[in-house]
């Protein structure tokens, strides 16, 4: 036996996934999250999972972890006391941002958050020009005064970001060396290490985020490593935002890379499902209480983006850029909308029906939970329509109060709009489904992908209730429900590779690129990647280096990332790069201009320590009649069919290759799967439910 273990901390639950590389056996264990002491919670969860599945510590070959520590520090503004050093004349770069506001007509809007207050932002005399030449030499002696002030302020971390340091890093490096000597124990983050890339605000913001969360991540990881060593487990890995593990040492150098750790695990889990089912093109959909998230997997690869803001506000259909802190590191391309099971339905002053963005969340929760919720939510409507079984929610742990849900919806929505109760409930569900579908649309249509070429994977307890309705919105022909949709994303933690992305600005017109120079730049990054892989103990056969370039038409502002083939760069490489860019532009935006000059902006290298992708073991029952799984029938409302008598089935007793036509409801302890009229559902031997459109769906 050789086991991989992954621990995923969420707001409410900590999920542990275990997987045996040899047999393909998996197990998922859920425990409560312990916000006061995450380390204790993780240790407890690990012990519980190892005991439940009989995993001895000596048989564990991989330990990985998705953490919310970094994101929470920013959302709760509990990061380190940080100082920032900038080029003279640019003290306010972090506050001036890009100067557009997020809310056009909101006279009460808050100023965008700034991680480092002005009195801890210091200027130093120096300047590098756009050609990388020194215009004003560094006045290194000014650092004595700055270091003293930083010391007096009790600063816990320092970020340094000078203009054009990505072309000439000497000034930042000298500042770093001198500060580290003057301020022992205070971590110093240099923008030329963190993000050697054009655009000063984004680079400063990324560096400041690293400094702000670095000390917290370091102390957390240190305590956790100590605890896991005591359990005699192998070295810890952290899930990175781009969907690969980070070696712990690497995560300390670049804490911003641990920002979307948990959601990244979910997307990787979806890609893993794709490999099991031979489905390379997937859209993953994760529905929670407050938000719904979508991301896209194409040809088995997770799509990543470097346009991301941590701590941004939400509106109904889009995350609001300009309110959070941009970090320009590769983050899985995740569209998030504020719509979920707890979203509240309400009527505006003009008689229009809305759902969200306000959510009843877990506290007080939907009206039907009977925990003090007074406003009708999506979950209440799911119950009223007959999708949820009031006696068998969370496996019967919570008895739902349908009468209360009905009374509230009638009073707040149905009567004001002159609708019947069922029409009102169906209306609320249609609106929230449309809002959630917008997240799917953003990662697919908006990026130039046709949703009809993809299958939808539904996560989260509520995801499978709404998944087919979303699939219909976008003409997605197939919906996949994994075995334990509420905890399955933890499986992503045991099903990915070790991965670190390196980026370097290489600002040249493609037709003027000296091939040797590009080869050299790539080799330098490849060497860093190789060193990282060696340091993490990855044997040579499992080391992989992938190269890419960010390219655009010379006059554009946004790049598209296109792969560069292996080998020494020559004319053929550059020509292929150009071809690939034009093609990508065409698929993304609908047009290209093959005669326009191209600009290379950044070079990228991904260093990957490949882990074999295990094959899941078949489970469940191979034979038997579908009727053996039938629990009975109940009245269920479907938009295209009205109220119909609908068969209710027990997921655990459905046989393989069973084929159930909709309308049907499949119940499991952690989820409910709704199969509308016009769709059918089958069971895969590995435990996946596959829903497909019949002719009229």
């Amino acid at each position: 036996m050789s086991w991989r273990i992954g621990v995923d901390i969420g707001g409410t639950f900590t999920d542990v996934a275990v997987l045996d590389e040899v047999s393909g056996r998996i197990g998922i264990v859920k425990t409560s999250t312990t916000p006061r002491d995450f380390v204790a919670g993780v240790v407890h969860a690990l012990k519980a999972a190892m005991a439940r599945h009989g995993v001895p510590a000596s048989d564990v070959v991989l330990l990985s972890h998705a953490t919310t520590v970094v994101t929470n520090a920013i959302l709760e503004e509990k990061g380190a006391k940080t100082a920032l050093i900038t080029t003279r004349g640019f003290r306010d770069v972090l506050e001036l941002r890009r100067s557009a506001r997020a809310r056009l007509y909101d006279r009460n809007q808050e100023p965008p958050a700034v991680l480092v207050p002005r009195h801890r932002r210091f200027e130093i005399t120096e300047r590098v020009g756009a050609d990388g030449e020194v215009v004003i030499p560094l006045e290194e002696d000014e650092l004595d005064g700055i270091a003293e002030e930083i010391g007096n302020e009790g600063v816990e971390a320092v970020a340094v970001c000078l203009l054009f340091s990505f072309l000439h890093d000497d000034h930042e490096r000298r500042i770093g060396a001198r500060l580290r000597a003057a301020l022992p124990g205070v971590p110093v983050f240099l923008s030329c290490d963190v993000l050697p890339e054009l655009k000063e605000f984004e680079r400063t913001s990324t560096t400041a985020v690293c400094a702000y969360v670095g000390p917290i991540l370091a102390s957390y990881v240190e305590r956790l490593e100590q605890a896991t060593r005591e359990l005699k487990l192998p070295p810890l890995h952290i899930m990175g935002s781009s969907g690969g593990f980070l070696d712990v040492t690497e995560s300390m150098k670049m804490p911003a890379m641990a920002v979307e750790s948990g959601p990244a695990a979910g997307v990787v889990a979806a890609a893993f499902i794709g490999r099991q089912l031979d489905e390379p093109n997937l859209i993953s959909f994760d529905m929670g209480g407050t938000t719904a998230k979508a991301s896209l997997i194409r040809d088995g690869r997770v799509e990543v983006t470097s346009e991301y803001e941590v701590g941004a506000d939400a509106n109904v259909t889009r995350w609001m850029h300009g309110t959070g802190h941009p970090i320009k590191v590769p983050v899985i391309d995740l569209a998030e909308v504020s719509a979920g099971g707890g979203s509240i339905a309400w009527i505006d002053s003009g008689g229009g029906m809305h759902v969200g963005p306000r959510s009843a969340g877990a506290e007080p929760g939907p009206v039907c939970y009977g925990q003090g919720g007074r406003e009708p939510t999506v979950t209440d409507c799911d119950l009223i329509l007959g999708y949820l079984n009031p006696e068998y929610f969370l496996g019967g742990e919570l008895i739902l109060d349908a009468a209360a849900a009905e009374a509230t919806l009638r009073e707040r929505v149905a009567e004001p709009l002159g609708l019947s109760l069922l029409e009102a409930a169906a209306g609320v569900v249609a609106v929230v489904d449309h809002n959630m579908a917008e997240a799917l649309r953003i990662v697919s249509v908006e990026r130039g992908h046709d949703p009809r070429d993809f299958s939808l994977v539904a996560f989260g307890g509520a995801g499978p209730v709404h998944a087919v309705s979303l699939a219909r919105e976008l003409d997605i022909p197939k919906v996949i429900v994994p075995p334990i949709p509420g905890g399955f994303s933890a499986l992503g933690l045991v099903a990915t590779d070790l991965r670190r992305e390196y980026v370097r600005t290489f600002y040249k017109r493609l037709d003027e690129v000296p091939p040797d120079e590009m080869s050299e730049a790539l080799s330098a990054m490849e060497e860093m990647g190789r060193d990282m892989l060696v340091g993490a103990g990855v044997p040579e056969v499992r080391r992989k280096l992938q190269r890419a370039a960010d390219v655009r038409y010379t006059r554009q502002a946004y790049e598209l990332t296109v792969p560069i083939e292996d080998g020494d760069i020559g004319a053929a490489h550059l020509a292929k790069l150009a071809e690939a860019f034009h093609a990508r532009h065409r698929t993304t935006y609908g047009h290209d201009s093959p005669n326009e000059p191209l600009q290379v902006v950044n070079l990228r290298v991904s260093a990957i320590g490949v882990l074999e992708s295990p094959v899941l073991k078949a489970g469940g029952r191979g034979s038997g009649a579908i009727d053996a799984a039938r629990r009975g029938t109940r009245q269920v409302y479907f938009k295209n069919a009205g109220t119909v008598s609908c068969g209710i089935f027990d997921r655990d007793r459905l046989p393989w290759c069973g084929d159930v036509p909709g309308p049907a409801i499949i119940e499991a302890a952690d989820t409910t799967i709704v199969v509308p009229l016009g769709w059918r559902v089958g069971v895969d031997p590995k435990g996946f439910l596959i829903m497909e459109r019949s002719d009229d769906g």
Partner: protein
Amino acid sequence: MADTIPAAFADNDPATFEVVKNSLYSMAAEMRVVLSKTAYSPILKSAGDFSCGIFDVRGDMVAQGPDLPMHLGSMPLAVKAVIRAWEEVAPGDVFIHNDPYFGGSHLPDVNVVTPAFAGERLLGFVCLRAHWPDVGGGTPGSYGTETEIFGEGLRLPPVRLYRRGEPLREVEDIIFANVRTPDEGRGNLRAQVGANRRAVTRLEGLARRHGPDRLLRIMQGVMDHSEMMMRQALAELPDGEGSFEDFCDGDGILESGETEDSPFTIRLHVKKSGDELAVDFTGTDPMVRGPMNSPLAVTASGVYTAVKTVADSDALIPPNSGCWRPISVQAEPGTVVNATLPAPVVYANHEIAHRVCDMVYMAMSGFAPNNVMACSQGTSAILAMGGVDRRTGNRYVNYEVVKGGFGARPGKDGINAIAASVANTANTPVEVVEMSFPLRVDRYELIPDSGGAGEYRGGLAARRVWKILDHTARATVCCERSKSPPFGLFEGKAGAPARIYLIKADGTRRDLNSKEHFIASEDSEIWYEVPGSGGFGPPSERDPEKVRADVRDGYVSVESARRDYGVDV
């Protein structure tokens, strides 16, 4: 509320209504994404100076994207101009125009209008208005101090750019023979056409899903719904009326012997009664010689932005033509707020719209004191410059905006250096400016004490300094509130006025007027200090701890703390 259900809900299907409405707004938002990512000019791809909208068959705006409030009032006219000019509109057609006297705003704002169809049946239009960095005329950036619109650049009435999907080369060739940076222009135009195509595809998809009849009915309903919400919001405000008079710095034209252009006056009267609001500009000065004359639709955009901010601060009312039905705007033709041909207009597009918006707050402060804010920067603070980049031998045009303060609100300080009122364009990153143009930015920073003192302090302004490298540039600045600083409210003090000056290579300094075309020779520096914003409430009421914190952060000087707040630090 059951008796107030609008006709749009006659289908008794509010969910479908909401779903289609959200689709219309998200397709306008998607146009924005496509344009930003594919356009060539920094003013579009980085600064975001453009607006996207979805329109009905009559040219009324059904949905505006999260774009520029400045375009609220005038975008419908851009589509109506196409409808008036061309009876026959076919699938695959694309139209273009920029004439402020025929549905445009100012010449640099180029409208691309594309109709959408279900088969041969017209569903409506999409329009993308984008600010091009240059459309010809006397100076780089087409921002000269001209005295007739004919000098301001290429004037393009609504003409076809594509006929049934086929590009018409003649029109494009005329356009690009008249602009300074044709390659850039062609890239921008392709991006506009592509963004429109994306929205048209989505609109046509909606018609397939819901049927064209239903879609068209809902499009009308979306506007009715906004009208109803706006009336409701206005009804909730106290009734009352108020007047305000304010003067603008000038029009940029120097009469012989003058060293400064002359100020002129705008007067307005606001009356809010029941669920309607009227703004009357009687008494406003006649048109001026320079480009500070505002087409009425631009003036109206300033009014609409103010009313939306006052009445619907939570932005619950979807912005479209329906919102403005309860609002009337009266202005005498031939005045600076209702320009007539051939008056030049290029500055007024933003400067008058800004001014009007802030003035409406002041006029309403007497009867709706809790819904207004102190004056913001009141200008788009533009620098347009060009010359020849010796590194490449190519001509360049750089167009930038610098942001001042966002005014203080009841209960809250203003915001530092962020776009306010009718504007929402972004800055261009310093490193992008220097990589693209032969310029070096020496400073980009907040100006201490530029926020008006008050119980709630006004937001600070920014200062940006450009050094001219290795060439001689021709530059134009266009700013306001250098003579009439941004006012405070309820005893709050005014913010700092704008100051613009040139420091020559020999160290001598020359103050510039707020609108001026000038030569900046090699190694000279252009210093641009934009206006701050007004404070709200008496400074003596400010919490001394907040004053001390402001001094610690250098937002307020020790002297100002003592003088304006009576706090010793």
